[in-house]
């Protein structure tokens, strides 16, 4: 019986028709990858099949603290609420080399190169991007905070914190066993600059009522010295309430605390800018987080500060950041932004490991209208920081960008193009 033969007022038919519409709407979110044919061809012709993996489950489970049982309920939309209300970094000036640094323990992981770096995989089928165990770990470098704030009958306590050049991570819990998690947390520093979250997890277990949120890192000048920070929360939601009509609890939870971000090694570069297809890119600085940092005591990373110039003033700032990004946590499927794979921004280390950014963010302030409408501006230039999460091996690292996505609105219509080139920078990585 075809849909047209059915009585549309029949409740069963109404339900199935609505269901069909809902499935169709949901499916629209899955956009095809224009690079798929190339990847398939590569897979068929190469010895190993490069693929992304979503089997990023723990191999270090015994070392995980109870919060290792977190369910994957990462609400990154908090970052966009932050964009909407226009908070951003104040763009504190960068300084030269500083920090004592920590010696790196390079992880020798050989991977085959694939047409799309985000699909790299080693011969055992494991992701070559190390998983970050976002869990408090007895051997980690986080510090106990124990600061709280209460509102609407709910107390939020920041339990632990860790900060370095690539991230500021807070572990917190709420007084209720519902496992409330923050929807739009912001981290404020003493100057009033705010930092947006780019990853968070929450526990749906009544037993393990702890959550975690990862913010964009503090500026390089703030590392190595005590920083007075405030976790600012205005919305909480219990994960089980996702489908409820009023899932959030609104209030104000301001939790001040002090932490000394771990300083790694900042490397100010003097690399000449490169211009292709009219667009100029210059990689300005590497800020290497110490190996053995982070909440898992093993990961490291690097913040790459770079500038894109000669962009049209009306070019979308957000479009210029549209590269595949990947942030993998243990016990979770790898997260990725689904951006077109042919826009590639990769970091290749001296040991051959190649990785894509875990996050890219502009260094300048975000307009009150939000990042999604912000343009580059009259200068035609914008500075970004790309965060790569991986144990850094010493030696020359290669930073490669193969396209620059440029989006403008002309006469009310979106105009998209990609500046083509191969912007390649080699920089000495000294973890």
């Amino acid at each position: 019986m075809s849909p047209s033969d059915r009585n549309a007022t029949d409740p069963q038919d109404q339900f199935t028709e609505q269901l069909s519409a809902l499935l169709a709407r949901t499916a629209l979110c899955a956009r095809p990858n224009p690079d798929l044919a190339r990847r398939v061809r590569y897979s068929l012709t190469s010895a190993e099949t490069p693929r992304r993996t979503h089997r990023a489950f723990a191999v270090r489970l015994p070392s995980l603290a109870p919060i290792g049982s977190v369910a994957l309920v990462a609400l990154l939309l908090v970052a966009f609420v932050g964009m909407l209300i226009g908070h951003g970094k104040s763009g504190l000036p960068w300084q030269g080399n500083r920090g004592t640094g920590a010696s790196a323990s390079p992880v020798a992981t050989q991977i085959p190169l694939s047409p799309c770096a985000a699909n790299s995989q080693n011969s055992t089928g494991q992701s070559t991007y190390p998983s970050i165990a976002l869990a408090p770990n007895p051997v980690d470098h986080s510090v106990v905070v124990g600061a709280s704030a209460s509102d609407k009958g709910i107390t939020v306590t920041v339990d632990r914190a860790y900060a370095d050049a690539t991230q500021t991570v807070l572990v917190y819990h709420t007084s209720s066993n519902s496992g409330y998690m923050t929807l739009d947390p912001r981290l404020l520093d003493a100057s009033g600059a705010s930092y947006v979250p780019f990853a968070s997890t929450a526990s749906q277990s009544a037993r393990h009522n702890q959550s975690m949120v990862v913010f964009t890192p503090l500026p390089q000048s703030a590392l190595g010295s005590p920083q007075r920070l405030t976790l600012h929360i205005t919305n909480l939601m219990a994960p089980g309430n996702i489908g409820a009509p009023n899932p959030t609890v609104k209030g104000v939870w301001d939790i001040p605390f002090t932490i000394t971000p771990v300083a790694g090694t900042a490397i100010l570069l003097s690399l000449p800018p490169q211009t292709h297809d009219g667009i100029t890119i210059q990689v300005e600085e590497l800020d290497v987080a110490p190996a053995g940092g982070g909440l898992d005591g093993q990961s490291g990373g690097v913040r790459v500060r770079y500038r894109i110039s000669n962009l049209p003033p009306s070019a979308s700032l957000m479009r210029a950041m549209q590269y595949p990004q990947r942030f993998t946590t243990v016990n979770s499927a790898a997260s990725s932004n689904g951006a077109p794979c042919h826009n590639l921004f990769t970091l290749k280390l001296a040991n051959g490991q190649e990785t894509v950014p875990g996050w890219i963010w502009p260094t300048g302030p975000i307009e009150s209208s939000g990042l999604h409408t912000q343009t580059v501006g009259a200068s035609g230039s914008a500075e970004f920081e790309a965060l790569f999460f991986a144990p850094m091996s010493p030696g020359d690292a290669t930073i490669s960008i193969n396209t620059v996505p440029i989006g403008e609105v002309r006469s009310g219509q979106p105009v998209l193009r990609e500046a083509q080139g191969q912007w390649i920078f080699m920089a000495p990585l000294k973890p």
Partner: protein
Amino acid sequence: MDEVEAIHRCQRGDMDGLEPLIARHQTQALRLAYLLTGDWGLAEDITQDSFIQAFRSMHRFTEGRPLAPWLYRIVTNMARERMRARRRLREVNLDAHALDDDKGGAGIANITDIARIAHASEVDPATYAEQAEERDALFQALSALTQKQREAIILRYYLGYGDHECATIAGCREGAFRVRLHGALQALKRIIHQRYPWLLPTNSSSSDMWEVIRHVAL
């Protein structure tokens, strides 16, 4: 190159025949995989692997039949395997700190992807958040079904195939598929009405939520 010629080329081992087939079918294959798994990245992997599998198995494809259902069977089987493997891995990794809230773990939407997708798509984040809430509720409801029930729902109500095609794709008899679909629909209706009544309102007066939902711009 038309589809018949492309299939012939693939059957001869000529990879040039694969590209037009991918261009024609990858969108629907990806969306099918996405609905079956609720995981964007996994859906992309499944789609890629399905076309690889299709190329390698093309010699077994019967000419004259439509390619899409044959391809979707590969996608469905692959999604089934991956979801089974994912559940197995979670069981193996259980310890005192296990995912005790994870009821099989099949298909909870990867919300981590959502904001990154919004980041990449330039959609108004508030709109995207609303749509994400709807998507998440749908995937949570689907995850409460068995994988085969979920397949039945999606094959029928997303792809719109009849009983015969659905049964072929699902790899079961037509009668068995009808029974499976009936059970799936009843279960899904119960879940939605109990937990997410706003998702599929039964009367127009409660459809205010839908008024604010806007399609993601493609």
